[in-house]
């Protein structure tokens, strides 16, 4: 149902919308996407966005390899994914159109820069005919806009060079989108003021373009309707936008601050984990000591050495790097030192598809070490959760003197979502256990509660001691090859990790406490599963969602929950790794939803799987 707007156009209420901006790497799509996202958030919508830029090496302008896109989804209720399919596509050139069109909803709106469809442009995008004319777009509402020309006119007397003016084009596109979703320009203009302080003429030109786009949409009657997405009821507070990698970096930094120890982050660059390194390198005022190591082995060893010396030692990487860290993680298990290993997963095996997302390192994180070598394994569920799970990783590592592997993935790393900024005083307390007195100190004498050994760093008078990778004699920590002692130590190391189950939150069922299907997920699949189960619950289906953030150890209460559901659907973007862990420990009727395509679940894929399971027997 739509109401009449002033100038006779209709304003249609929608619950939710998905928009994608796409153009050449040089076109500034990430910038305007981010601005639209902030604006939508500031004006009260729930949002989630995902940038996808060209994989690795920069491709020539105008080619398919060079397309850079930014998709966001916003709505009047909780939005947990960037959206299955855009309703609006803004394409700055033929390549962008070609790459993105397949995902656009049929009947969706396609806004293109018609000035960028010259024969040579078309050729670069491998178009034989002009898609604006050959019927390619019949199923869509095509809105051709002479963006280049409009932008030129709008910025004519800005005093900038042609090239500089050309660069304002993206704001013209943004202006159109803002009109379409009935958004005010003011906040954006203010942001520009700040951003381009030092270059007022650039500011002016961008503002002119922005207005030009907005007004053009308004006057040229491009659209029969414009859309309104009502405010969402979000928890009150101050918000910012974060990506998963930003949140990981923030989490590590804040965690170290709360322990009162310096953070030593040792890492070797690798896609998609490098941003954590970049981010932390920028905050040395927090006594963050960043080591760019010569390789992942050195990075993990340096982090472990730092932990031995009393700092918060953290290392971050992705699959191929994790492979190289396993031996050092094993050393952390034997020496029972705190160590946090961030693994931002990417699609494998081997070098695989470095920029694509997958959850296939779970079993490696659990078992990818020789010998009986138990460690804590955690997984962040959302971009914002990366922050909290980093705190949790440091909490468990230091409290239990153990390596902790924290899993994220390429999708989480790049997804941006509004993050409710916590007041640091409300964050978990990471007080470190106090040291024993020198005359009480025995290197492997454990806290009866946690089974953790004392953390006594070099520099502490009177407690000089030696540790290493050879089996330790119980309590003394001396080297021991004794059979009985080995049995005991293997058991103690296992018991220590298992015992952590008593110190983590119980698993939560979202939806009916019992029913037909319980969808169990972990990590970045949270958004799609939450959306799919949420929808079906609203449709009255007996479908619930349980999301695991602690994988080793698992929450204590799973054995109570699983029996309450007819079937347990384990959904993960791998071939069934969590399923295997669950089957080993629980006897429920497990079904699987697996996707190994280097892409996250779509909401509809999860729905379909649940329906399929519901329709069984």
């Amino acid at each position, binding site marked *: 149902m739509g109401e009449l707007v002033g100038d006779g156009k209709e304003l249609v209420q929608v619950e939710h919308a998905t928009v994608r901006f796409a153009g050449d790497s040089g076109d500034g799509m990430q910038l305007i996407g981010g601005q639209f996202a*902030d604006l939508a958030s500031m004006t*009260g919508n729930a949002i989630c966005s995902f940038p996808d830029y060209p994989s690795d090496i920069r491709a020539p302008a105008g080619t398919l390899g060079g397309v850079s896109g930014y998709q966001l989804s916003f709505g009047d209720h909780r939005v947990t994914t960037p959206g299955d399919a855009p309703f609006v596509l803004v394409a700055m050139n033929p390549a962008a159109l070609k790459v993105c069109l397949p995902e656009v909803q049929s009947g969706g709106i396609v806004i293109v820069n018609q000035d960028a469809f010259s024969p040579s442009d078309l050729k670069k995008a491998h178009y034989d005919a002009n898609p604006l004319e050959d019927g390619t777009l019949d199923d869509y509402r095509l809105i051709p806009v002479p963006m280049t020309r409009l932008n030129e006119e709008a910025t004519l007397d800005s005093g900038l060079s042609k090239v500089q003016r050309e660069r304002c084009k993206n704001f013209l596109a943004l202006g159109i989108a803002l009109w379409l979703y009935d958004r005010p320009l003011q906040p954006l203009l203010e942001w520009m003021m700040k951003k381009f302080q030092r270059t007022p003429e650039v500011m002016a030109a961008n503002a002119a373009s922005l207005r030009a786009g907005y007004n053009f949409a308004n006057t040229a009657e491009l659209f029969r309707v414009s859309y309104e997405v009502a405010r969402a*009821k979000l928890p*009150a*507070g*101050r*918000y*910012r*936008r974060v990506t998963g990698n930003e949140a990981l970096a*923030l989490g590590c*930094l*804040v965690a170290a*601050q709360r322990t009162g120890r*310096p953070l030593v982050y*040792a890492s070797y660059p690798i896609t998609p984990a490098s941003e954590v390194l970049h981010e932390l390198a920028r*905050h*040395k*005022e*927090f*006594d*963050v*000591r960043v*080591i760019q*190591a*010569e*390789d992942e*082995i*050195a*990075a993990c*060893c*340096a982090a*472990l*050495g*730092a*932990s*031995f*010396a*009393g*700092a918060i*030692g953290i290392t971050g990487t992705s699959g191929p790097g994790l492979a190289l860290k396993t*031996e050092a993680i*094993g*050393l952390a298990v034997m020496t029972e030192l705190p160590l946090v290993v961030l693994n931002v997963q990417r699609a494998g095996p081997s070098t695989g598809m470095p920029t694509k997302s997958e959850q296939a390192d779970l079993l490696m994180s659990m078992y990818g070490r020789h010998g009986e070598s138990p460690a804590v394994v955690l997984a962040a569920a959302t971009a914002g959760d990366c922050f909290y799970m980093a705190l949790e990783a440091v909490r468990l590592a230091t409290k239990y003197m153990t390596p902790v592997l924290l899993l994220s993935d390429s999708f989480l790393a790049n997804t941006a979502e509004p993050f*409710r*900024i916590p*007041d640091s005083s409300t964050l978990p307390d990471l007080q470190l256990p106090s040291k024993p007195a*020198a005359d009480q100190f025995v290197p492997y004498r454990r806290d009866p509660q946690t089974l953790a050994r004392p953390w006594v*760093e*070099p520099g*502490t*008078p*009177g407690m*000089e001691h*030696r*540790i*290493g*990778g*050879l089996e330790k004699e119980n309590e003394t920590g*001396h*080297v021991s090859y004794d059979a009985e002692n080995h049995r005991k130590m293997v058991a103690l190391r296992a018991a220590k990790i298992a015992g952590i189950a008593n110190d983590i939150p119980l698993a939560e069922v979202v939806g009916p406490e019992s029913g037909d299907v319980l969808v169990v997920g972990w990590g970045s699949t949270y958004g799609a599963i939450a959306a799919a189960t949420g929808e079906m619950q609203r449709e009255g289906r007996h479908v619930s969602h349980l999301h695991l953030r602690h994988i080793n150890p698992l929450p204590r209460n799973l054995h109570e929950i699983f029996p309450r559901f007819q079937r347990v659907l384990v959904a993960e973007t791998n071939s069934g790794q969590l399923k295997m862990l669950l089957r080993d420990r629980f006897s429920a009727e497990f079904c699987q939803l697996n996707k190994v395509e280097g892409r996250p679940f779509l909401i509809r894929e999860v729905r379909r799987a649940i329906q399929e399971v519901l329709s069984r027997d």
Partner: protein
Amino acid sequence: MTDVTSSLNCSESTSNADDCVRTLTRKDFQSGREVRWCPGCGDYSILAQIQKLLPDLGIRREKFVFVSGIGCSSRFPYYMQTYGFHTIHGRAPAVATGIKCANPDLSVWVVTGDGDGLSIGTNHLIHCIRRNVDVNILLFNNRIYGLTKGQYSPTSEFGKKTKSSPMGTIEQPLRPIQMALAAEGTFVARTIATDPAHLHETLEAAARHRGTSFVEILQNCRVFNDGAFDTLVGRDADEDDRIFLRHGAPLRFGPGGHKGIAERNLAPLLVDLETEQAREEELLVHDMKAPSPALAALLAALEPPHFPMALGVFRDVEKPTYDELLMSQIESLIGQRGQGDVDDLLNAGTTWEVG
């Protein structure tokens, strides 16, 4: 190593008196664990000299950390009554880098072997030296894999017959000193376990140097490579086979110092001073501060039978250390921005209020 003065201060001394640096003795550095090297192993003498040296450095005992990889040599930390970390094969320099960055005030020592340091661990060794992390690296070179019972190592001589090379190796040996020099080590020295005095003085010089100190210690493996260095020092030694480097002194060696080393077209030249007294002033003069790497490279390549093997300090120059620079960046940023405040950081950038 740690700034000596900073840690001499005894006011921060704790109750247990023996932590006060002035009172430390050699015994204070013996861990009491049974030393488990083969009878006659060269490692014993190195252990003894280190335990003799540390009390003289004026560093509080709790500030010493010994880090090792895997090998006979790498058992070293277990025998030291200091903090110690027996890590994994080849990785000690990386672990030590983490330790030093976490606490630059520690005196960090790396003990490694020719296999641990120059086979599996080459990468970390080189990058540690290149970064000039302020640690002391002792490479026990017995030219064999001892712990694994006698395979050849990267420093084994060409053609050597071992368990894994029954027909003799087909690999040219690496020269540890050359590698350390190429990585632009700020302190590079060679000594030998069978000459306690020279060993001691070299270790002391290494300890006093700021930045990475790399010391190759020729060490006899009694069981799997016995006698490897007998011609250099000891009963069967041949004075023609070794030359001791002294900063600022001409390169003389041999019985009565009657031989010397000169250079022509940058190639070493043997001079017999008994027959050619005149050429004395032609002799090369050792300069461990030389900015150009040529002299050190020339000396590092000297080897019997044609030339003597050089013992002593090849290079000793001052450069800022990695850990110093790391901390100074932190301090300068704190200077600019002030101590970081977590809430400011969380609230940085574009933010907005909801509800």
